[in-house]
């Protein structure tokens, strides 16, 4: 033993692994679609190539193709193609556990031994001589956390340990070892070997150089044939390592193979490395290794006794530590995250050229309250999401009935079964299915309505609902009135007008619709959006709360209830549109909903927001229309019968039941605002006997 100490031990640079995303993607789908709970080992294929860069080693790489294909996609996916010079295949085995605990509990040492045994047996049987790639056999253990898209794994490249270790007699660049003639011939022979599709991916070979400097590359199995004549014989291998003083890992098992198969003590090895696709002898190495006699003898003993297996090493370290690696692919696999980045794309593209001033942050942070989750509510919610609005609350007390899904675009038959889900919750579920990142909330609640007698035992509940509605309005930025009755819009209108929230109303007739934004309430504007709004505030104060006046001295824009009173008298607008809500031409609701949302986007992008003046199509006030989103009308009325649409303005009425000064600014009135008594009182002012039975659709039709 003492003799060996003077000579350095031959040290091998460990193999390094690299796993392509595609491998984990396919493993995940394999696990989900085919394997299920089955955790039996899976044969896989790794790929490597000779190092081709003086600073970087080549990795043993796993790709999607490393895994067996799923039966259903066999036709479309090519199997591993042999003969690719940059993808020499190495056989491997994958143990994918079902749990993280299982992963950590794996007896790594015995698994490594089992794989080393396979290498040893293939050497013993001569199989390795035929198919040398077996010498680079590897092992992968993993746990695929498919819920978090993270993968824990550990590689092993089992190497048979020579004891005592081989020592190094000589190691130098191949260009120094060979004569010039030899080097030329070696390069040519190697290039031929690498360029022939039958040998390009055969990673171990014999390099024989005859006395006339002619080099030949042969298969390992031709060793016997190379024993005649005066020639240099080197054992070559594709060296994934780039280091100038160390051969790569595959040489370890090659030496064990040579030592036990041919009982050689002194061996010349050739670390084949490349540059630009050609043999680079300045980069390649030639070395001479010495394996001690006792070692050979021991191996020979082992040879006779196949039960004896040399000990093995080879677990890959993680930055120098024996710790499993973990890779997270949530960014590229989590459908929610993918949906978010994809959803933003269209909007960002709009900003790019058509609408550079589009404020995506304002849209995504605006909290929208949708009162009513029917035909209009469904459609408005979808349009809001399309514009990048992410915070949506839906309020509805109804359940999804069989007649709903055809027109109410968020529901399907499933939502109608077993008595039907609540519309609000079914709509939220559906919104999340469309876009998982939406922050949608469902509130199952009836909107307190004037004119609907409240039995005394329900009084408390209705009062509670009033309070809840007020809280909801307080906590949102924009409110959509999308219910199918006129009276259900009253209380929200009053509350919004008091808090100066953005309100948008959409109402449908049989073939005509009204979409409008409510003007600011008579009170001071509390929610200050910008300095200009502040100016409005102070101006308003200076004017002594002249409730009908706007900052420009113009009239305040009306709400749904004012405009009804002051609307121009014509045959269309004379009708109370909402009365016929559920009997409408099917195209009407999507048109009105889309306009309602576009109106909101307009308001959010207008410097004066809720106080913005009404603008008209073909407006002569051209300076104002220069907003990138175009004009901001107060009301849009449309008729499908005429295929026409017009923009109108209706100013606030001082006798409006919902937004007039007295209704809002008188302290006693406000105090009673959520009170049932007041509700009941005001209810009496409605002459019509409203019917809230939505199943009696036909009764609503006004002829």
């Amino acid at each position, binding site marked *: 033993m003492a003799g060996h100490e003077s000579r350095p031990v031959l040290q*091998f640079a460990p193999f390094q692994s690299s796993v392509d995303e*595609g491998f984990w993607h396919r493993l995940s789908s394999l696990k989900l679609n085919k394997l299920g709970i089955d955790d039996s080992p899976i044969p896989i294929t790794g790929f490597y190539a000779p190092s081709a860069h003086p600073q970087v080693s080549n990795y043993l790489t796993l790709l999607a193709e490393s895994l067996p294909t799923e039966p259903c996609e066999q036709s479309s996916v090519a199997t591993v193609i042999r003969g690719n010079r940059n993808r020499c295949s190495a056989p491997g085995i994958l143990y994918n556990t079902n749990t993280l605990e299982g992963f950590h509990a794996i007896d790594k*040492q015995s698994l490594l031994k089992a794989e080393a045994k396979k290498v040893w047996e293939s050497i013993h049987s001569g199989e390795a001589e035929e198919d040398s790639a077996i010498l680079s056999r590897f092992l992968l253990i993993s746990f695929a956390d498919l819920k978090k898209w993270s993968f824990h794994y550990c590689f092993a490249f089992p190497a048979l*340990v020579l004891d005592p270790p081989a020592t190094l007699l000589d190691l130098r660049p191949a260009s120094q070892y060979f004569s010039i003639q030899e080097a030329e011939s070696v390069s040519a022979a190697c290039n031929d070997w690498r360029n022939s599709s039958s040998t390009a991916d055969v990673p171990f070979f014999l390099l024989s150089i005859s006395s006339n400097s002619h080099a030949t590359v042969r298969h390992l199995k031709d060793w016997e044939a190379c024993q005649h004549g005066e020639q240099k014989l080197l054992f070559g291998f594709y060296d994934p390592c780039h280091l100038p003083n160390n051969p790569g890992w595959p040489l370890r098992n090659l030496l064990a193979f040579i030592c036990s198969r041919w009982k050689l003590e002194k061996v010349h090895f050739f670390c084949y490395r490349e540059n630009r696709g050609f043999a680079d002898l300045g980069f390649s190495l030639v070395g001479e290794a010495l394996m001690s006699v006792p070692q050979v003898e021991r191996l020979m003993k082992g040879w006779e006794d196949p039960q004896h297996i040399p000990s093995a*090493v080879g677990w890959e370290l993680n930055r*120098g530590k024996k710790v499993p690696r973990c890779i997270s692919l949530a960014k590229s696999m989590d459908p929610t995250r993918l949906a978010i980045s994809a959803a933003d794309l269209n909007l960002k593209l709009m900003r790019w050229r058509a609408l550079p001033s589009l404020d995506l942050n304002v849209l995504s942070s605006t909290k929208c309250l949708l009162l009513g989750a029917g035909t209009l509510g469904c459609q408005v919610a979808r349009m809001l999401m399309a514009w990048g609005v992410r915070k949506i609350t839906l309020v509805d007390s109804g359940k999804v009935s069989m007649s709903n899904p055809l027109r109410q675009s968020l529901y399907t038959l499933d939502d109608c079964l077993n008595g039907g889900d609540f519309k609000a919750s079914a709509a939220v579920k559906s919104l999340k299915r469309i876009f998982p990142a939406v922050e949608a909330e469902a509130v199952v609640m009836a909107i307190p309505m004037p004119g609907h007698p409240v039995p005394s035992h329900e009084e408390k509940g209705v009062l509670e609902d009033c309070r809840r509605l007020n809280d909801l309005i307080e906590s949102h930025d924009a409110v959509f009135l999308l219910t199918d009755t006129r009276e259900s819009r009253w209380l929200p209108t009053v509350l919004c007008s008091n808090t100066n929230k953005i309100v948008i109303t959409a109402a449908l007739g049989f073939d005509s619709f009204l979409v409008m934004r409510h003007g600011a309430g008579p009170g001071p504007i509390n929610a200050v959006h910008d300095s200009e709004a502040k100016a409005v505030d102070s101006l308003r104060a200076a004017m002594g709360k002249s409730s009908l006046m706007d900052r420009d001295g113009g009239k305040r824009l009306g709400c749904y209830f004012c405009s009804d009173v002051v609307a121009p008298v014509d045959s269309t607008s004379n009708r109370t549109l909402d009365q016929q809500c559920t009997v409408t031409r099917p195209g009407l609701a999507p048109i009105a909903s889309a306009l309602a949302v576009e109106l909101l986007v307009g308001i959010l992008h207008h410097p004066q927001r809720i106080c913005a003046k009404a603008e008209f199509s073909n407006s002569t006030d051209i300076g104002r229309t220069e907003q990138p989103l175009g004009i901001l009308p107060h009301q849009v009325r449309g008729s499908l019968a005429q295929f026409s649409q017009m923009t109108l303005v209706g100013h606030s009425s001082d006798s409006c039941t919902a937004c007039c000064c007295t209704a809002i600014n008188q302290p006693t009135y406000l105090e009673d605002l959520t009170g049932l008594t007041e509700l009941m009182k005001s209810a009496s002012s409605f002459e019509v006997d409203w019917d809230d039975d939505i199943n009696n659709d036909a009764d609503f039709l006004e002829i």
Partner: protein
Amino acid sequence: MVSDQATVDVSSWNGTLSLSDFRESASAFAEKWKEFNSAVPQWSWVVCPPRPWIAARDVDGYLSLKNAFLPRYKEEDNIGGCQIGEEEPSCSDVNERTDNAILVRSYGHEVHFYDFHVVYNSSYRVPVLYFRAYCSDGQPLTLSDIKEELPASSMKMLKECKWTFITEEEHPYLNRPWYTLHPCGTSEWMKLLFANDALVAKDGVVAEQYLVSWFSVVGQVVGLKTPLEMLHSCTRL
């Protein structure tokens, strides 16, 4: 679209490319790249399994350059979410500890690898650059990681030019998210690029040089420079 006659008057050209011209241009580009950039990885044509809506005679595929690497300038240990936990006592093995035939390597510098694909977009009729980056163990880098690595000139381009819009989109063949430069401005600036070229003005647009010119622009965004000689050699065609 560049016609089959290989050249077309630049004034009437709309800056796009047909699928067959794309393939022709791609192979010319790969050849030129090999000639002038032999030191860096080479482009290769990846053949994709035929898809039902594409005529059988058309070989479907894309150009691919794999494993280009940029040595990192920053020293940072935990980039890209590679987590290192406590060493497991259970897996310690006497053999491995004492086996002095294992070279103990230093893990000082982490190399990042880049893959580039040039894919034909049949809606815009232009080539599109898809790319991704990952640590040596395969952990993908995020866009902000990538942006930190790109040379300062790229960052300047990203800021100043409107067409250099990096988004994450599904790779049309791999069905996995890759980063891409959106193609909607490509035909316009290609038209500008060719209109300013005196030789093109004289001889017409040559399909072969489309990709070389195109890449001379988009390559800069991701830190891949096109040698000037490559451009010159092409215009001399």
